[in-house]
């Protein structure tokens, strides 16, 4: 198991939503830049534009990152040899926060599949 320093462990409580925030900035900023560069006009195959591909790719990447983080926290919490109640608490908050961030990602960003981007 990777040993984390105390401040890094504390930061875990916000990590799920930090990834969500990065995804938000990437999707919102990426969408604006794509529109400016005309990516929504570049059709790749089957009516899918470069813009849509970029957005869906960012979406999938973000979702996978938050899911993996939540699973990692779940495993750390469930694993034997837990160091203290405080560490357990942090892992549980981090895991639950990760699950909430997954829900937020699904709810806020799934729109990339169908809404007009520009």
């Amino acid at each position, binding site marked *: 198991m990777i040993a984390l320093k105390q*401040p890094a462990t*504390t930061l875990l409580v916000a990590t799920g939503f930090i990834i969500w925030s990065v995804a938000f900035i990437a999707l919102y900023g990426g969408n*604006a830049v794509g529109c400016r560069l005309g990516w929504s006009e570049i059709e790749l195959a089957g009516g899918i534009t470069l813009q849509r591909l970029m957005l869906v790719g960012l979406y999938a990447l973000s979702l996978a990152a938050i899911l993996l983080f939540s699973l990692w926290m779940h495993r750390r919490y469930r694993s034997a040899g837990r160091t203290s109640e405080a560490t357990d608490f*942090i892992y549980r*908050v981090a895991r639950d926060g990760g699950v*909430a961030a997954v829900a*937020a990602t699904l709810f806020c960003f799934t729109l990339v599949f169908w809404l007009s981007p520009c």
Partner: protein
Amino acid sequence: MTGTPEQPTSPIRLHKQLSAIWDTPPGLGRLGAVNHTILGQRFIIAALIFFAIGGLLAMLIRTQLASGASPFMDAELYAQVFTMHGTIMMFLFAIPLFEGIAIYLLPKLLGARDLAFPRLTAYGFWCYIFGGTMLIVALIAGVAPDSGWFMYTPLSSSTYSPGINADVWLLGITFVEISAVSAAVEIMVSVLKVRAPGMSLDRMPIFAWYLLVVAAMMLIGFPPLILGSILLELERAFGLPFFDPTRGGDPLLWQHLFWLFGHPEVYIIFLPAAGVISTLIPVFAGRALTGYRTIVVAIIALAFLSFGLWVHHMYTVGIPHLALGFFSAASAMAAVPTAIQVFAWLATLSHGRPRLTVPMLHIFGFFFVFIMGGLTGVMLAMVPFDWQAHDTHFVVAHLHYVLVGGFIFPMLAGLYYWLPHATGRLAVHNLSVPAFWLVFGGFNITFFIMHLTGLRGMPRRIHAYPADAGWEVLNLISSMGSFIMTIGFALIVVDVFLQIRFGRRFRRDPWKSATLEWAMPTPPPSYNFAALPKVERRADGLKPQEIGPQLAAGHGYLGFVRQGRMETLGVSMLTGKAEQVIILPGQTNLPLYTALATGCFFLAMLFKQYWAVPIALLAMLALFLLWTRVTGQRSDTGSLPIGMGESVPPHAECDEAPSWWAMRFILTANATLYASLLFGGLFLWVSAPNWPPADLPALGIVLPVLTALALLTGVASGRRAVSHYDNRSAGWLVLCGLAQAISCALLVWLALTAIPAPTGHALSATSFVILLYAALHCFLATVFAGYGLWRIKAGYVSPARLLDLRIGRLWQDYTAIAGLIALVFVAAITRLAAEGSLS
């Protein structure tokens, strides 16, 4: 330095010894107060005075709107009045009141003697007072801001607001925001590091979690507003066209920067109030808070979501559907963590035996009003509805239901709960009950009606309306309600006065609470606890009645005095294990003098006396350096006894001293401001008209490469000076200072020669400001290197005492990163603009 504590012989003697060290001197000595109890009370009193002024302005607004064509105020005066009402309530009342409560309560809740940086608290207080006074003086002089509390451009640009009204807002509010950012740093470091031993993160009282999250939000939320104010002031004063579409700027950039701050601000106001509710409900329900861990998750989620919905104030400006969808979904999603808290409070009440006290009366007021405001918030989060209700009185009604419900009622609950703590007296009259009903009834009469006027199409910010619009009767009822509400507030003032003057004295913990602030005499002594407790369970399930006398007798940590120093304990962030003795600075006028110098800077800017600006800035720098005269130690002491059989080193010999964490948080806020500036540049390239400009920046190759080399030399030598501390470290610091000075000069040279006139186009203006930002950091990095040298020469540094150099290293690291990004960004955006000109 000897670490031997002086053992007291009795609790009374210990009290006298501690009071002699911690008490603020009388008379003019009060100006040098750094004690958190005093400063917290001052913040609260000042915020309430500003609330009274803001409330008076609200009465003027309602008087004007009571009839359709009232001759009471003309449009110009009305614009000043409604602008100042919003500005005062948001910036001079709500945030400072929360800061005051946090400053007063936090060390008491955490089992500490003071906050991590008492002088910073005092500096923040003076900045708040001086900045707020600037705004009020402008109001009295008839030159108050008049562009609305969110100061939209181009209305606030010099073309349409040529006087100093808008400058008063931009400079005054930035001045006040210094106190908000300093409070954010103070609160974060204090919650994370300055707690009673044994108080691990999972044992913190829930209010500390709320304050930690809110402080982090302030650290990220305020810099975009500060940046926006700087850019708009640069445009108004020097013609740099960030918001002027004729020269490549965009008014929408202001809206983005403002609401990047503005919407999280709503939650920055609400969450501390929710923290008060989460603290009070368990006390009056006689049961522990339901879902402590779930609430922690909910407030973290809410904090992040609140940053993802700023555009819901901008639905009508023309934004692609997909982006609207992101913000609409995030806006609706924010209701979920809020609802989790509401259900946790209801569950706590339903499982307990609630006592209907005056604080609980206000909490029920909160439930009713805030939930209504939340429901209209979900309505406004939906884009089609928002398009219909945008800029009508419906929005005014919604925001008052959220802010009064979500802040005023909980704060009144907190006032009635903690007033006995500050005064040592309990109420003997029952004026508080009719006062509550007058406020509650008057509020609902005033603002519920506004939903109706809004749905009938009444726009906000108009000073007159047609007689046949069908709004007059509703407005008259609304105005009558506001007078009823004012009578309620006046009654609360009388009630509080009576309680302070004639209230009944009590021994300890009148509410049968379970948190540490009640385990001390009331009114609280300047040192809070004669000894610091060892916390062995969650700190909102304690028994103050039993703990208090033990601590007063000196049974605990630091139950003694040592060399007349102000000491408290620092703990490891996660586990709460005692880690360091934090030696705090004593009373001093330096924060006041530094705030005065800061005020001179802002006044020089306001009255365009630019010759005085560098003088004021240098005075500020010199005064801040004077702060360091009493910090640090000239010899290693090793571990000091702290009682309970334990010993820990002083903070100067500890890796994670509070000031090291403070620098990290300051850099976090700074990085947010920088990221907002880069976002601004990118946004203008994406969205603004009149791009690309005729003249493009031409950095070339040689100078940027030389600058990058100088930056890298600076950071490498700065790091080397600390990582292997020896007799060559001073030499490395000299090299670091030289390299940073060269970087500074090169960056200034680039800004002056390689960028076309910054007044010509937003691209030049943005590039110019980015390069100067990096140059300023290099200048300060030189100062840090020089400061490190002085500390070495003066004997404050040893292999065990590297704190000063480690703090400087953080700045050197940030400077190098910021400088390199500046060079790359300016080159990249110039290239992008050039490609635009070719296509």
